[in-house]
């Protein structure tokens, strides 16, 4: 045995965000599943502990069964309220406060969206909202683009984690800029969780191989033909990617190197 740590010790190192430790480095959303049963089984299969939810008006004309807490137990999962759909700092702060009141912790996944077509973040509004919420005692996990400067400012603002995108929300395009993600991870001390854009297991694996601390995904599971199987695949891919990163890959070379001895060949 040449390694310093057994593989299960490596992947088992917990992820700590805002003073809380989590075993799983995969976080999942609860939106867009075809059925609530699919959602519950997929989340279970993913092994995720942190599960995101949105804050919306109660529909007073329909049954109250649409609330996600009728299907997911807050004792079983760490519920992370988001501010999805908010287009200004003020609106995001309002939703964050409502989420904290509805919820079970001080964590918020902060989104301030700047454009309806791309759903890319409004980084100015994001920073303003982050500063306000940190002041109010929130543990802010900030969804941002893959820009180092914004990531550094979010860290300076006191965010508990910075969440750069792999590619736009719901696009499934995978990790389009590994260099930016690696740079952000290298320069920040706060946990870096890649949020949005992962489409399939190989995307998750490649993303984790960049050394980031975790991944948050929703559509890749909800829109898979078999969400439960995809959730299991994503759980394995996140672990595989994490372990490969810790193992340290071989160098890339543009020449072949034989794997078998060149000496000892028959004459």
């Amino acid at each position, binding site marked *: 045995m040449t390694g310093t740590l057994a593989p299960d010790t490596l992947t088992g190192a917990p992820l700590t965000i805002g003073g809380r430790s989590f075993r799983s480095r995969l976080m999942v959303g609860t939106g867009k599943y075809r059925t609530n049963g699919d959602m519950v089984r997929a989340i279970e299969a993913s092994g995720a502990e942190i599960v995101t939810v*949105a804050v919306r008006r109660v529909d007073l004309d329909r049954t*109250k069964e649409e*609330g996600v807490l009728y299907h997911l137990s807050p004792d079983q999962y760490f519920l992370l309220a988001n501010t999805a759909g908010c287009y200004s700092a003020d609106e995001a702060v309002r939703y964050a406060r*409502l989420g904290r009141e509805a919820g079970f912790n001080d964590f918020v996944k902060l989104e301030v969206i700047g454009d309806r077509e791309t759903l890319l973040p409004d980084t100015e509004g994001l920073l303003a909202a982050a500063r306000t919420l940190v002041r109010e005692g929130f543990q802010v996990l900030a969804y941002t683009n893959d820009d180092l400067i914004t990531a550094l400012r979010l860290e300076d603002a006191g965010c508990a984690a910075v969440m750069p995108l792999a590619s736009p929300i719901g696009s499934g395009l995978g990790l389009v800029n590994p260099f930016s993600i690696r740079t952000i991870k290298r320069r920040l001390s706060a946990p870096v969780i890649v949020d*949005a854009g992962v489409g399939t297991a190989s995307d998750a694996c490649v993303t984790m191989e960049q050394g980031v601390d975790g991944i948050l995904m929703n559509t890749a599971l909800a829109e898979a033909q078999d969400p439960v199987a995809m959730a299991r695949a994503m759980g394995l891919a996140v672990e595989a990617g994490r372990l490969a990163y810790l193992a340290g890959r071989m160098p890339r070379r543009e020449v072949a190197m034989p794997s078998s001895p060149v000496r000892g060949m028959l004459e």
Partner: protein
Amino acid sequence: MSELTVTVNGKTRRVPGPATLLDLLAHLGLDPRTVVVERNREIVRRVRLGETMVAEGDSIELVHFVGGG
């Protein structure tokens, strides 16, 4: 008993009064443990729902957690 006109989740409603916010939730068939109440842009904490009176013209938002990413 009289009636109060209030806006709940963007819609004008006539509700029985006088009423506390807890009464209003009961009138709407909602479990106070699963709903967060915002009255005139201020969150009313769950423990205060039973002592906070609904006033004529109040704007009330009732929210909860739904699926999201």
